[in-house]
Every structure is written in C-alpha cells, then in structure tokens.
C-alpha cells in the first residue's frame, strides 16, 4: 500500500464520527436529488410513454349531441388533409354526470364503450388489474378510480340516466390515454357487451358519440387544427357538440397539480442541499483545522503537502462515493412510496425503471462537489509550515474582545459562559443560523402546500371562480329559474357566468368566463395585474397566454367565435392553472359582439347564505337546493353541480401528496439539523476539550457544561427561527410564484397559517435544543484528570 493510501486509511479509522456524519449528509443529499430527478425524469414521463404505447396519437375529437351528417366519408374529407392517420369509433357519452370519487364526487363526462376498446388500433384500453371471476354486468374503470377514487374490484358503480339507475360490478381497472384522469374532464369506461347493448339501445339516440383519434402530419399545429376542425364540424351540423384535446393538453392536465407538488419538493430539497453543502465545506475545513498537529508532524517527517492533500481528497471521495451510491440506491427504494401517491393523481400505472441521468446526476453532483470543496480547503495544507502546524496553526497571540465579562454580566453563570461560547464560535453560529433557517423555510413551504392543498384547499387554484353550486337551465326557463333562485333565502350572490371556448385568431382556444356582473365574483385575486374588464370592448386574458403571444395590458386582441370576431382591449391578466393556462374573462355585453348571449342557456352560480364549517353539511344543503330546483323545473334543468362535492373529489388526489410532503420535509429537517448539530458540536467539543477539562477540574459538572454548550447554540437557533419564520411567511408566496409561473399561477397568494409558522419555528427551536443537548453528551466522557495527564 502506498503512503497516500496509508494516510487515507488512517484518516478513516481515526475520524469515524466525522466520516459517519458526512456520509449521512451526503447520503441524504444524493437520495433527495435522486428522488426529485426520478419524479421528473422517470415518473412523469411515464404519462407520455404510456400515451405513445397505447397509441394515443396527437389528439382526440369527439362529436356528440347531434351527430347527423357525420358519415365516414364526411369525416375522411374533413381530416385527410391534415392527418397521417386517424381512427373513429362510436360509443356513448354522458356529459356532466356526477360520479362518486374519493371523498366526494366529480361532475364529469362519461365515455362508455364495450370491450372492443381493448382491441382498438388507436386509444387502446389496457387492463391493469381485474377480477375475472366477475363475468356479467361488469364495468372497467380508469385506474385512477383505484389509486385515488377509493374503488376496488367487486365494488358497485352506478350510472343514472333520466331517473333510471344502471348498476355495474367493478371487474377491473384500465390504463387509458383519453379519459383516464379526473383533471381531463372525462372518464372512459368499458362495460360488458351485454350491458353495453342494453345501455346503447336505451340511450344512443341521446348519447351516441363519435370519437376521432388522430395523428397529425408534420407541420400541422394541433391548436390550429382543432379550431379549424371545430369550425368545419359545426358547418356539417351546427347542433353537434364538439370537444377535443391534444395529447400535450391531456398529459399536462394529468400531471400539473402533481408537478406543482414535485416542483415544491425540489424547491425545498434545493434548500436542504444548500444547507448540507454548507455543512460539508465546514466539516472538511474543520477536519483540517482539528488535525493540524498531525498534518504538521507528517510534514515534519517528510510527507509533502501534495501527499497529505491527496490522502484528504481520497478520504472524502471514498465517503462521497459510498454515500452517493447508497443514497441513489436508497432513492430507488424509497421512490415507490412517492410514486404511489403521485400516480394516484396521474392515473397511470408506473413501475420505477433505471434512469441513467437521474442516477448519474446526484452521484456526480455529490462526488464533484466534495472534490471541489476538499481541494479548496486542503490547499491550506500545502501552505502551512510544519512548525506552525505542530503548534496547531497558532502563529501569534490571538487578540480578541472579551465578550460577556463575567464580572459585569447580569446573566447566570451557565448563561454567561454559554454566551461566551456563542461569541467564540461565530462561524458555527452562522452555519446554524442558515441551516435552521433553510429548514424553517422548507417546512413553511410544506405547510403552505398542506394548508392549501389538503387542510383548507385553495379552491381558486382549481377553479377560476368558486361557489356553492351551479344550476344550468335551458333557454326557455332562463328568466324563470333566475327569479326562483333570487327569491330563495338559503342562497345568495347569484351570478350569471357562462363557460365557452372562444378562439384567438384561429391559433389558440381560450376557455372563457362570460360574466354578467364582474363585481359579484368571489375570486378577488383572479386578476393579478391590471384590472378585470368593465366595458363592452374589454377582456382580461390569462398571464401565461399573454406571455406566450407577447400581449401587454392595453394591447388589442382579436377573438373569434364561429363566424364572428371582435377586437378587444386587454385590461388585465388573470392567473389560472386550468386549461393549460389558456383562459379569458369578459362581460355579457362584451360577449354580445361575437355571440348571441341570449340564446345560450342560463348558468347560475350561487353561494350558501349560511355556509357551515362542516363541508358535509354544505354538501347536503346544496344537494337539497339542487334537488328542489330539479323537482320544480324537471327537464328544463340542463345540469347541476354541487361545488363542495366536486372539490372533495377533485382534491382527493392532492391531499395525500401534500400531507406526505409536510411529513417528509419536517422529518428530513429534523434529521439534517441533528446531523449538522452533531458535526458542529463534535467539532466544538473537540476544540474546547481542554477548556472542558479545566472547567471540570474547577468543579463544573458535566450537566452544567452540556447545558452551557447546548445553550450557546440557542441565540443563533432562536434568531434563525424568528428571522426565517418572518422571512418565510413573507417570501414563500413570491418564491413559489417563481416556480409556478409555468403552470399559469403568476402571483401566488397561498394562505400560510401563522400558528403553523410559529409552531414550526418554536418546534424546530425546541427540537434543536434537545438535539444539541443530546449531542453534547460526549462532554461527559471528558475527564479533567485525563486531560491533565494527556498534556
């Protein structure tokens, strides 16, 4: 063995504590980066991979309502110019159907097929799990019903049409591209052929639906193609209801909330990595300081600075290599836990696969970072003279200020000595301040996610406008229903808001909120820049759309609907995470320029007069109101929506993931603080071992010295907890905004509960104190006598 390896081996043997501490920090770092990268590079791409594998093509169009005139020849004529290939099939589509899902229900379109769905050449359904013992009257549900919807095989699934209930036994769950996730506003179901025939016979006149899955020719833009197709389809039959998604939109809808959480996870992780990196640098630098005498002795007997430097580099690289390899393996082991929650939201089966980049980047980062820090810190070794090193680096007397003079201090002796230690260890205090601060920030961000996605869901992320319920009446009863609703005392703030797709210059579809009286909107933070439109020539568009097309406030934008177009003045930017951030809002009067607003059914959004704290009570109350409406107006009520119920269903998938984030982040914070205090206190005790021996000789007990040492970290811990609690409270939203812009949330105003922030700050302070006290137990081992004879 050559001399450098001999030194390395000696370092590893002699510095087990430091090696283990650094090993664990590096392991956590690698593991966290690994998990974050696996989420982004392996888990989320699985949605795209599955879409390709199941022949999802470039997009999907559906024609329902009235399909007269849409012959195969006509469809071919419409599509053949723009598409490489397409596949059409007929099935049944029930629009705006309430379905039990998770903790509530979702109001969603149901696309129902027979078992030919499993053999289609495009948009093929695939069985993920099934109970083949169920042989009749069965249904296959999208996989998300199993991962997040609370359904299992053998459960009963009901569909109701015109008062008739159709009950099916759940036989299995499917992987499907279009209609696999509640965020895509469509669930694709497969029933057995016998049941399908029965349903078809009874409902096809009303619900027959033509689906078209297509692959576009090179150069054809999906958005433009869809708009063009919709216009052409409406020319064939103006009473047809056309819908469509491009594949990117579907993928985005299936992943965006999960991605928000994943990005937040990465944001928090990056802070942990920063803290760990800071600690790594400090630990390596401390090691060199602590072993200055040994290094001097080695130099004195003829080792060159290069030999010593090489041994240090090899030592830390061995730790980094081992830790990063085990860390990345650990990330693969832990990933299924994260994935199980994320796929609940995506509704796509996912098995972790080996991802070369996600594996190499964390390992490479940790190893290269360690190498860099070690080389920089170890440069000191080359410069020091043996005699200086033998004096442990002391070249001259150290003139310092006498902080907290005991003769003048009004503090107790333990507090005074703790303060002395505090002032004597400013570097460690700075590290403690920032590490704890970063952890506070991570926890506050996790708290923010938990608060806004789980505890008190921030509904205006999921919906541009929030309400208690929505009633849609046909045009015939429009005024009558409005009057009826306005006369009810149990509801208030009835506002007329119509949702329609309008188009920007045949390029982009904008999901539009057409509002009669904008002042009645509940979502007051909707417009984050400028103002909501007031006059009939004004419109507010989503910020991400404006950014994509270079629009500024004050610009004019041409909006099309059918054959009509009008140039509107942009008065403000709204934020939305829905519809791929392509939304707009304007008034009834403004809409009149491009559509006959009076010919559209009445959409009435309302709030409860007495909203309860208990969501279940609200659900029952809204159900009662909607049922009374339906009883009174019967078939004139086109659709209803219980918002509380819908949110319950929609939020089901996000609650688990945000709770997991909070638990994981708080746990990691405690572990990181414990490790960092371990390394800092280990180093401190080592440096002060002589002082502790003297104190013990003078009559100080181990307990009082431990208390002093733990207390000496408290000023920086408390200052950090206070400063970073305040900073986190004020900065978390703008910080999150930086990352959320790509999802359309331009200006976040997530609620951050002050008691929660206080609990995090106070909790981490208390935990830090007890962890510090625990780490100082090594002071017990210092014996005055041993210190005296050792000298």
């Amino acid at each position, binding site marked *: 063995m050559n001399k450098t390896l001999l030194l390395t081996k000696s370092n590893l043997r002699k510095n087990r504590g430091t090696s283990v501490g650094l090993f664990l920090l590096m392991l956590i770092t690698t593991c966290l980066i690994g998990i974050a990268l696996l989420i982004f590079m392996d888990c989320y791409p699985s949605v795209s991979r599955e879409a390709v594998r199941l022949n999802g093509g470039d997009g999907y169009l559906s024609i329902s309502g009235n399909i007269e005139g849409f012959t195969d020849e006509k469809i071919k004529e419409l599509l053949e110019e723009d598409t490489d290939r397409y596949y059409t099939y007929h099935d049944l589509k029930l629009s705006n159907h309430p379905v039990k899902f998770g903790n509530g229900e979702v109001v969603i379109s149901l696309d129902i097929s027979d078992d030919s769905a499993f053999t289609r050449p495009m948009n093929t359904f695939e069985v993920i799990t099934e109970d083949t013992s169920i042989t009749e009257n069965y249904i296959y549900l999208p996989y998300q019903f199993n991962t997040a919807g609370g359904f299992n095989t053998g459960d009963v699934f009901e569909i109701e049409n015109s008062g008739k209930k159709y009950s099916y036994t759940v036989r299995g769950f499917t992987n499907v591209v279009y209609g696999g996730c509640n965020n895509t506003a469509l669930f694709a179901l497969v029933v057995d052929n016998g049941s399908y025939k029965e349903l078809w016979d009874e409902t096809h006149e009303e619900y027959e639906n033509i689906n078209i899955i297509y692959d576009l020719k090179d150069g054809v833009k999906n958005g433009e193609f869809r708009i063009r197709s919709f216009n052409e389809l409406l020319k064939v039959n103006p009473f047809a209801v056309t819908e469509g998604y491009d594949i990117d939109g579907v993928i985005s809808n299936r992943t965006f909330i999960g991605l928000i959480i994943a990005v937040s996870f990465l944001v928090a992780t990056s802070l942990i990595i920063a803290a760990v990196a800071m600690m790594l640098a400090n630990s390596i630098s401390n090691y060199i300081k602590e072993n200055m005498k040994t290094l001097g002795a080695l130099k004195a007997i003829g080792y060159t600075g290069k030999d010593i430097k090489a041994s240090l580099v090899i030592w830390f690289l061995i730790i980094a290599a081992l830790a990063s390899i085990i860390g990345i393996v650990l990330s693969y082991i832990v990933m299924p836990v994260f994935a199980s929650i994320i796929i609940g939201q995506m509704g796509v089966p996912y098995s972790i696969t080996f991802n070369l980049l996600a594996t190499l980047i964390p390992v490479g980062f940790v190893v290269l970072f360690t190498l860099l820090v070690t080389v920089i810190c170890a440069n000191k070794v080359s410069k020091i003279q043996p005699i200086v090193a033998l004096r442990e680096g002391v070249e001259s007397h150290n003139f310092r200020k*006498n902080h907290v003079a005991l003769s003048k201090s009004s503090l107790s002796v333990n507090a005074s000595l703790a303060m002395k230690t505090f002032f004597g260890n400013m570097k460690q205090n700075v590290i403690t301040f920032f590490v704890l601060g970063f952890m506070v920030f991570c926890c506050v961000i996790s708290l923010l996610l938990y608060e806004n996605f789980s505890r008190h869901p921030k509904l205006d992320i999921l919906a541009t406008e929030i309400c208690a319920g929505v009633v849609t009446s046909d045009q015939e009863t429009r005024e009558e229903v409005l009057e009826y609703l306005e006369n009810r005392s149990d509801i208030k703030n009835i506002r007329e808001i119509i949702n329609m797709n309008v188009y920007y210059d045949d390029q982009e579809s904008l999901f539009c909120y057409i509002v009669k009286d904008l002042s009645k909107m509940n979502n007051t933070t909707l417009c984050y820049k400028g103002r909501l439109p007031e006059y009939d020539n004004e419109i507010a568009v989503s910020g991400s759309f404006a950014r994509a097309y270079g629009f500024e406030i004050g610009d004019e934008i041409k909006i099309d609907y059918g054959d009509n177009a009008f140039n509107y003045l942009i008065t403000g930017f709204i934020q939305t995470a829905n519809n791929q951030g392509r939304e707009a809002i304007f008034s009834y009067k403004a809409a009149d320029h491009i559509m006959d607003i009076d010919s559209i059914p009445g959409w009435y959004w309302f709030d409860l007069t007495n909203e309860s704290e208990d969501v279940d009570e609200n659900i029952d109350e809204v159900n009662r109101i909607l049922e009374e409406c339906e009883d009174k107006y019967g078939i004139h009520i086109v659709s209803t929506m219980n918002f509380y119920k819908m949110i319950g269903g929609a939020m089901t998938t996000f609650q688990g993931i945000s709770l997991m984030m909070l638990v994981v982040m708080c746990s990691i914070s405690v572990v990181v603080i414990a490790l960092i205090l371990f390394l800092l206190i280990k180093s401190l005790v080592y440096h002060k071992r002589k002082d502790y021996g003297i104190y013990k*000789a003078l009559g*100080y007990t181990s*307990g009082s010295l431990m208390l002093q040492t733990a207390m000496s970290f408290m000023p920086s811990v408390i200052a950090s907890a206070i400063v970073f609690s305040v900073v986190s409270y004020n900065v978390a939203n703008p910080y999150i905004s930086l990352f959320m812009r790509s999802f359309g949330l331009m200006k976040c105003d997530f609620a951050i509960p002050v008691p929660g922030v206080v609990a995090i700050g106070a909790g981490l302070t208390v935990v830090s104190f007890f962890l510090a006290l625990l780490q100082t137990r090594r002071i017990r081992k210092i014996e005055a006598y041993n210190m005296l004879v050792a000298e």
Partner: protein
Amino acid sequence: MKNIIETKKLCKTFSNGGIQQHVLKNIDLEIYEGDFTIIMGASGAGKSTLLYSLSGMDKPTLGSVSFDGTEITKMNTDELAVFRRSHCGFVFQQVYLVDSMSVMDNIMAAGLLVYKDKGTLVKKAGDLLKAVNIDETLWNKFPTQISGGEAQRVGIARSLINDPKLVFADEPTGALNSQTGKAVLDTLTSFNEKGQSIVMVTHDISSARRGNRILYVKDGEIAGECNLGKYVTGDKERHQKLNDFLATMGW
C-alpha cells in the same frame, strides 16, 4: 494537629494491553491543616497520581480517601465536581487558564460556582489578583497576552478564590524559569503563612524547601517523610536536613 485528608490502603492500578501497572500501593496517609506538604519522587514514581487521587480528580482503584471526614472515593463524578469547587484549589504545571477568557473571567468562572453575591466575588478576585502581584492593567488581558509567570500567579489566585481547605499544586514552577518560579513559590508561601493548607508535587529541591513536611514517593509507596518546620529564607540547617533526607531516599 487536625488532619484534612486521610487515606486508607490507597491503590491505583493502570491497565494497558492486559499489563497491569501498580502506580500507588496501599498508601495510608494523612494531610494536616495548615501544612505546606511536599510530595517528591522520581519521574514515574506516582506523585502526581497520588496528588490527583487525594483531590478527587482521579478515582483510586482500591482504598479510600476521606476529606475533612467525608469519604470522597464513594462520590460519583458530579458529586466530586461539586466537592472540588468548594473544598479544593488547583495549580497546574501548564497553568490551564481558559484561553478564551480574560484574566478576571478565569477567576470569576471558578468563583461563580460558589459565590452568589457577584459584588463580593469581584472584590475578592481583585484582592487576590493584587495579592499575587497581577497589575490591574492585566485583568482584562487574555492568558496568551501575559507572561508564563503572570499566568501561573493568576492560576494561584484562581485556586484560592473559593477559600479552599486545601490547594493542590502540581509542579507549579515546572514550566517557569527560576526567577518567575521563585515569585510563584513566594506567593504560595505567603498564602501558607496566612494559614492556607497546600499540597505540592515537585521534583525540584529548591521548591521542596518551601514545605514544612516532605513525603517521598518511591515505586508507588511513601518511602519516607521528613519534617522541616516553618520555612525561613536562608535557613541553611533546614536545607541540609532536606538534602540529607533525600539522599537517604536515593535521590
């Protein structure tokens, strides 16, 4: 004369790699109030081990040590620490002042363990520093900013701050030159003359002359004892008596 310390069958054995080394062997000893007791012996004879065993700094392997009637060998580490703070003062060869504390704070750090009244303590620390000839301009200096002799005299002041029954001094002049060493010994002698009991380990004859009772440790046992009487400067008869005693001990 009243004894402060009494040992019975005091043994100390070190074990290193399975080999046992008996450093102190069945020592029965008494230390008396007001004495300036000197422990002498060759290097490795066990004199420092004896000193630290007597002071409760080190635990004997067998036997007992009673301090002022209380058996300290039965105390645990924390009880010993509390015992030391109010009964013992220590002066070390390497001084062992806390480098990060000023001269005054080094004394206060020991005094605050016993004194509740900070005003009284500050005054007493000042008086002691003056008594050991540490100029007031040095009180706020750090140990690395004063000379070795000054540091040792600060160490003596620190050892006396809590009015200990007994001061244990382990080669207090070992790291000093003869002139500063003499000043330190003068300081200790003057406190002894005022009634302070001192036990000092030394292998320096001129230091040993300051004591009134000499104990000679050889191979872990008290090989001999010599009573010199009160120290008087230039007492040649006294010096001769010590030399003769040491000669009989094989010094």
